[in-house]
């Protein structure tokens, strides 16, 4: 097997976290190699302008790798999962597909045990991450408006917030009537030209890739600089094992290139950035004499405590034309009235609301699935579409589903990827508490639409295909018997191994996680630099 020269740092995965860390280390002059199983995606591949967009986004541009089946994807057994993990495998990782919503966690998310008596506290606080949230959003490219009363004070964002549009105006007026919180949502979408980002043209197809180059995905905002600064990115490199030496320290990774040849990439430090499914999969695959239950797994928690945010939504239809097909998607508003714990509601923690336009024609009919045919087809079909098109938008509630050790990623005994590597199997049951939370939020979202003047509401009360946030499967903590890595993502068992992706989350919060993943990765990069300097 060919051996490459030893990099100071070997990063596995070129998604959100891998990009941030690699770029920072390369900028500081560290030799970094990154192995990524996928390749570069060109904006010309994005289907947003195709008239068959609705169909394409449910097939070859699906968010679910089991449906999409691109060569870089690996299968995931979800037969026993209430929610299915979604991701993108390629340079930029999930940021190629994501909606670019950029909320931070709130301070209480880091102290759920102290404040609510359940789950666990993080070993770090909001204040620890705060400077990194601020630093990362400049380069990432975030548009937003400071002053949100649901957050501690923060400086202005690098770009002004995106226009909230007619749907945002209408929804905000309804929330004001109820006295409920809302604010312009921060989005990693350029409201004006910023670095390599073009200004947003509000096409609303952000989740299948931004044709305009306005959505910040790290293939645009990080990788060109990282490569210029000397980082080595090897694409088409599917890692099957993290290697260790006789003392159990990490030495590198074995990967398979697209011609089927195996290579050994070596690094003095190894960093896992392969997301909440890919990281436990690889650690569990890396069994050795020193690590018989998988690498970094003396706590037995690798793969355990998986958190995938459940989501419920209510569509409101209004009398006037609100151009509700207009982007970004991205989202104009955030609603955090029911975010913090109020035990009188019958559950702990809460939900994050966001407002969503309805792109395409099909979703209007999908909202009516299950209804009697005569209410949606035949004589009523045209009346339905005239009533809904441009006049319908969604309130969505993302639910905090606290960690359970039984919710997990493990290796499937039979399923393998195209290289014959065991695929992950996901076992996931939504907690009773989260189910009560979902029912509560549905009622409130209906009220929010009614207060805004909706003439009709339709609900999505159960959606399995919402596992876009894969969190918790290598949690951080101070106690090596009860966590996999420390507050910098360093493995308790293997001191030159780090985890920096969404796996490190202790509790999932109800926020979209990428701003926190990126801030954590930058903090780890600075820690690696500082400890190198010290030694």
């Amino acid at each position: 097997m060919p051996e490459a020269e030893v990099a100071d740092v070997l990063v596995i995965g070129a998604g959100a976290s891998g990009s941030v860390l690699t770029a920072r280390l390369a900028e500081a002059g560290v030799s970094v190699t990154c192995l990524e199983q996928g390749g570069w995606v060109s904006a010309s591949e994005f289907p947003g302008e195709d008239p068959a967009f609705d169909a394409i986004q449910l097939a070859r541009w699906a968010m679910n790798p089991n449906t999409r089946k691109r060569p870089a994807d690996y299968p995931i057994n979800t037969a026993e999962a209430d929610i299915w993990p979604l991701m993108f495998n390629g340079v930029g990782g999930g940021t190629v597909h994501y909606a670019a919503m950029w909320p931070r966690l709130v301070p209480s998310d880091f102290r759920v045990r102290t404040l609510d008596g359940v789950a666990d506290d993080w070993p770090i606080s909001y204040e620890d991450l705060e400077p990194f949230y601020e630093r990362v959003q400049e380069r990432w490219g975030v548009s937003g408006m400071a002053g949100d009363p649901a957050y501690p004070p923060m400086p202005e964002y690098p770009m002004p917030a995106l226009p909230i549009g007619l749907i945002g105006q209408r929804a905000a007026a309804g929330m004001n009537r109820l006295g409920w919180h809302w604010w312009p949502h921060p989005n990693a979408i350029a409201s004006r030209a910023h670095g390599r980002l073009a200004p947003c043209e509000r096409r609303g197809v952000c989740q299948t890739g931004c044709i305009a180059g306005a959505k910040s995905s790290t293939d645009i905002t990080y990788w060109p600089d990282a490569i210029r600064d000397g980082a080595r990115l090897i694409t088409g490199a599917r890692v099957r094992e993290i290697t260790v030496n006789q003392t159990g320290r990490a030495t590198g990774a074995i990967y398979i290139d697209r011609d089927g040849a195996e290579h050994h990439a070596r690094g003095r430090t190894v960093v896992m950035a392969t997301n909440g499914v890919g990281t436990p999969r690889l650690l569990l695959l890396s069994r050795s004499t020193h690590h018989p239950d998988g690498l970094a797994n003396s706590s037995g928690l690798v793969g355990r405590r998986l958190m995938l945010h459940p989501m419920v939504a209510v569509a409101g239809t209004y009398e006037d034309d609100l151009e509700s097909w207009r982007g970004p998607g991205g989202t104009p508003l955030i609603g955090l009235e029911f975010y913090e714990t109020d035990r009188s509601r019958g559950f702990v923690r809460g939900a994050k609301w966001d407002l969503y336009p309805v792109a395409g024609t099909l979703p209007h009919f999908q909202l009516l699935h299950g209804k009697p045919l005569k209410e949606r087809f035949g004589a009523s079909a045209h009346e339905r579409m005239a009533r809904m098109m441009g006049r319908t938008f969604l309130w969505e509630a993302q639910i905090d589903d606290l960690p359970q050790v039984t919710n997990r990623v493990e290796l499937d005994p039979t399923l393998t990827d195209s290289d014959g590597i065991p695929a992950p199997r996901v076992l996931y049951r939504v907690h009773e508490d989260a189910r009560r939370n979902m029912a509560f939020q549905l009622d409130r979202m209906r009220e929010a639409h009614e207060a805004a003047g909706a003439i009709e509401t339709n609900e999505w009360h159960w959606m399995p295909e919402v596992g876009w946030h894969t969190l918790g499967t290598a949690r951080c903590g101070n106690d090596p018997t009860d966590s996999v890595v420390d507050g910098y993502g360093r493995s308790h068992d293997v001191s030159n191994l780090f985890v920096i992706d969404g796996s490190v989350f202790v509790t999932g919060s109800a926020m979209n996680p990428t701003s926190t993943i990126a801030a954590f990765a930058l903090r780890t990069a600075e820690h690696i630099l500082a400890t190198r300097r010290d030694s």
Partner: protein
Amino acid sequence: MTEPLTDAERMRLAAIAVALFPASATMPSAADTGATGKWLDRVLAADPLRTTALRALAGRSETDPWAAAEGLFRDDPATFEDASDSLVMAYYMHPGVRKRIGYPGQKGQGPIAPDEAEHYLPDELIAPMRSRAPLYVPTPDA
């Protein structure tokens, strides 16, 4: 590989599509727009697996097209929704239909004008939020 739809299946689907999308005073029928021809081809090119559900719909024994749709919806709702989704996408792909429902497609709207954000967010709209007490629970040990 999924076998392509036969001509007979297409004809049957065309009749069912008209039952689902008949002509109205303002809208053409599925037949007028050729929904089950080139537009359905576009849907199936994007996702050939959709053929299976369409075949199930075309193969219903009820002679009346509306009854065939009702029959599949009753016996196998998931397959009906899959098949009807394909017909919905095909019908609304026609540019004339899009125009009539006021849907421009997910096209670029041009860059954001400098005063556009303020236009949608007048001070009086956001004032209640600006004057709200903080909602967040601070870090207990900070």
